[in-house]
Every structure is written in C-alpha cells, then in structure tokens.
C-alpha cells in the first residue's frame, strides 16, 4: 500500500495531463489547471521548506561551531540581507532598489568572479589529473588547447578558417557526442517513467 499510493498518484496525474494535452475538453482542461496549480504550490512549499532547512542547519552549525562556522555566518547574513531588503514594510519585493543593488553590486559580480576563476580551477584539476591518469588528462588538456586555438579572435583569411573549423567542431564532433548523451538520457528517462507509470520495480522482473 505504501508503495502503490505514490505510484497510483503519479499514474493518475500523468494520464490526466497527457489526456489534456491531446484532447480538447473544458472539464479536463479545468482539472489539469487545478493539478498544475497544486504542483506550483507544492514546488513553492518545497522551496520554502528548503530555505528553512538551510537556515536551521547553518544556525546549528554556527552555534555548535561545527564544520565551517564562518561560512555559516556569511550564509545567514546574506540570507537575512536579501530577506530584509525584499520584505521590509513598503518594499516592492524583487524590484526594490535595495534588492536590485544587492544583486547587481554583490551577487552578480561574486558569481561572475567565481565563474571567471574556472580556468584556474580547471588547471589545478588537470594537474591533479595528470598525476593520476596521464593519458586521459593529457587528451583533455590537448582538446582544450585546440578549442582555444579555434576560438582565437583573429581576422583575415586565417580567422575565417578558424571560425569555419570552430563551427564544424561544435556542430559535428561535439554536437554528435552531446546529442548521443542527450538521447541516451532521454531513453533512460522514458524507460524509468514507464516503469513508474506501470508500477514496475526490480522485484517484478
């Protein structure tokens, strides 16, 4: 019973939404809308619960001086700053100037800086990789070097050649591998979804 109830819920909801997608019927559409509203509420509730759990966890770690108390303090201060800026009396929420300033002047530059340091992190990881698996890491570094060469922003005929080669590389080998991965993931997802819809698990096989 404990296993079949969630499976039955998934089957019923999935079939209803699927039917609404292929059949034009006002009653069915209204039912599907109601289900979607419930899903949105569920997602909002899950996000809220996640936020509360995060705060509780870091509060506990900060008070108990476990793990990384300084990191917990930073997280809680940041959390509070955004909440206060977005919820103080008279605030206009996410469009409030205080929230916009926090995002534009602090959050966005911080995340962009972290992303800009990706090269250094990758280089560090590559060095460690060379120590452990020389062949694979060398191949990865060589491929990275080739990509950088192809993207060099130079003009003239060499630039045209590089741009053409870069487009071909992106469209053919990289695109092929990427699409193969996506198709594989899609097939596995479809199989898993079918198993859930049919309530099939390992014990049934």
């Amino acid at each position, binding site marked *: 019973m404990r296993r079949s109830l969630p499976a039955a819920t998934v089957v019923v909801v999935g079939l209803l939404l699927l039917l609404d997608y292929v059949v034009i019927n006002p009653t069915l559409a209204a039912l599907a809308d109601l289900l*979607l509203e419930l899903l949105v509420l569920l*997602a909002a509730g899950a996000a809220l619960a996640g936020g509360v759990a995060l705060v509780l966890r870091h509060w506990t770690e900060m008070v108990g001086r476990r793990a990384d108390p300084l990191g917990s303090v930073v997280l809680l201060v940041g959390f509070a700053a955004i909440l206060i800026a977005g919820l103080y009396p008279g605030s206009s929420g996410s469009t409030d100037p205080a929230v916009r300033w926090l995002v534009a002047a602090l959050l*966005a530059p911080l995340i*962009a800086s972290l992303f800009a340091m990706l090269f250094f992190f990758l280089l560090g990881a590559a*060095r*460690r990789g060379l120590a452990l698996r020389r062949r694979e890491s*060398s191949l990865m570094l060589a491929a990275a070097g080739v990509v950088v060469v192809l993207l060099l922003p130079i003009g003239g005929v060499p630039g*045209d050649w590089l741009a053409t080669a870069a487009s071909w590389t*992106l469209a053919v080998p990289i695109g092929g591998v990427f699409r193969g991965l996506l198709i594989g993931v899609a097939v596995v997802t479809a199989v898993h979804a079918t198993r859930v819809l049919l309530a099939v698990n390992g014990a049934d096989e």
Partner: protein
Amino acid sequence: MNEPDPRPWRRAALAPLALVAVLGVASFVRPGDSGGALLLANPDRSRVTELRVVLAALPDQPLVLVGLDPDLGTYAEIRTTVRAAFDDLRRRDARLAIVSFTPEGRAVAAAELDRLARTGFAQEALLDLGFIAGAEAGMVRAVTALVPVAAEGSLAGAVREAGGGMGAFDIVLVVGGGDLGPRTWVEQVGTRLPGLPIVAIAPTFAQPELAPYLRTGQLAALLATLRDGAAYASSVAAAAGPPNVPNESPERVPSALAMLIGMLLALVVLGRTLLASAWGGAGSAGPTETDGRHATRSPRAAAERAPSDEPVADGESAANGEPTGDGEPVEGPE
C-alpha cells in the same frame, strides 16, 4: 638531484598571479584598439541574418514576450547580445513583456528592466510579468494565464484582451543559460502554441543542445556563440548609428585584443603543463595534495621522490590511485 625548493608555494603562486595581472590589464583594452587584424564577430553571418529576418517579419508595434532565465555565471557572455536585441526591438517599436521562471532570471530581469527604463524605453511599452514559480508546471500554466492580477497599464490590458496567455504575443525571445532555457520553452510552449515563433539567445555551452531545434524550425533563430553574438551586436550598432541617449554609454562588444591576450596566456599555461607532463618532470606544477598526502605527478618524479622522501608502498600507492614505482599510473577506487 636538484635541491628541493624550500618555499615551493612561491613558484606555484607566481604563475596564477601573473595571469590575473595580465588579464586585469587586458580587460581595460578597448575594442577600438583591436585593429583590423583582430575580429571577434563570426564572419559567417547566417545566424544573424536568420534572427533579423524573423524580427523584420513582425507586424508594427509587435508584442514580444521575453523569457529571461539566464545563469548569473554565464550571463556575462551573452549580455551584449541580449542588450543588442533589446535595442533592435526598440527600433522596431516593439512592446516588451518580461517574465522569468527562475529566481536568478528574475534578478537579471529586474536589472534589465531598470536599464531599459533608464535608456529611454517607453514605460508604456514595457510590462513586468515578474517571477512565476513552479518551473515547468508554472510555464505550462503561463501558456494560458500569464498576466498577474496586479499588472496594470495599456500593455497588460492589450495582453488580457488577446486572451491573457502567451498566444497574445507575436514572438517569444528566450534568454537561456539557466535550468529553464530554450529547450524547455520548445518542449512546453512550442508544442502547445506551434504558431508562435521562438527565438533564443544562449551561452555557447548550450549550442549543441539547441542546434537540432533550430534545424527542425522549432526555434526560428538562435544566437548561441560569442562570435554570433558579437556579429549581431555589431550589425545592430551599425544600423543604429551613434547613441542618442544621454548619460548612457553604449553597450560595448567585448574587446578582441583583451580576449586574444587572455587566450594566448591560457595556451601558454596549458602547453607548459602538457609538456611538463610529456617530459615526465614535475614541470611547473607545485606540490599537489591528494587526500592529505603528497601526490607524485609523474613516474620519474615518483622514482626520484621515493628513496629520499617517505617510502611508497605499492599497495598503498595503488589504493590511492597514485603512480607506482613501475611507471604506470594505477586507478584507485572511485
């Protein structure tokens, strides 16, 4: 045998610091200094032409829905393209409604709405549809019910009169990079409203995923590389002429020279690391910590270190995934 460096961290820290310093200097180089030998824009303008043809086919004062859900980390790559698209749409007297389905996207949307207002975009031609929760479920709901109850103004009224859903719009411009990007729009909105053209701007990493949708026509146009974005921004700037908005510097295309300097440095560092590995020496790499112990970077380094440093037991070394004394790296447990 060489004397060990008593302060190896100095050498390890020098290269990254030098790289940061040069990149910092390079970032101040303006695009005008690049000269004719440097070119960031893609010489193949087919992607730009596709987008401009789609936009040119729009009716007068088109209603454009902008799905703004980029990732803050990669938004810097496409920001110039996105702002060029806004400029392009403004010149076509478009009316924009901006919606986000991710919190990050909402943060970017708030900033871009503020910028659009500052740069002279008519307030009555802008509609903030805010953040819609619920990810894909929220997007599906928004197909038929998009305008918030609190939304006011002539544009909100026009959308309500046309049904209040996404079908009221002439085109959708999706700015991707986050979890809910152009692919989700094609899957959730394109299948429900097949007559609604969707064009997309996305970072390069998303290009292999999105290119098939462009080929099938599910995306009417796609700009998903820095080069295509630069080509589009250049074409919009060339069509517009000098900026006429006071107190607002025009959005600059990234400097080709600054990028070239950074990329050449990256190549030098990559090449040095590779060569150091190929020659079997420690090369430029400083001491590397793995699980709290010093990891050898090459068989030769391992052979040199083992007698003078702590002895390396074969079993222990293999268990940690380090190269053993016979020169072959052994994979450790995952």
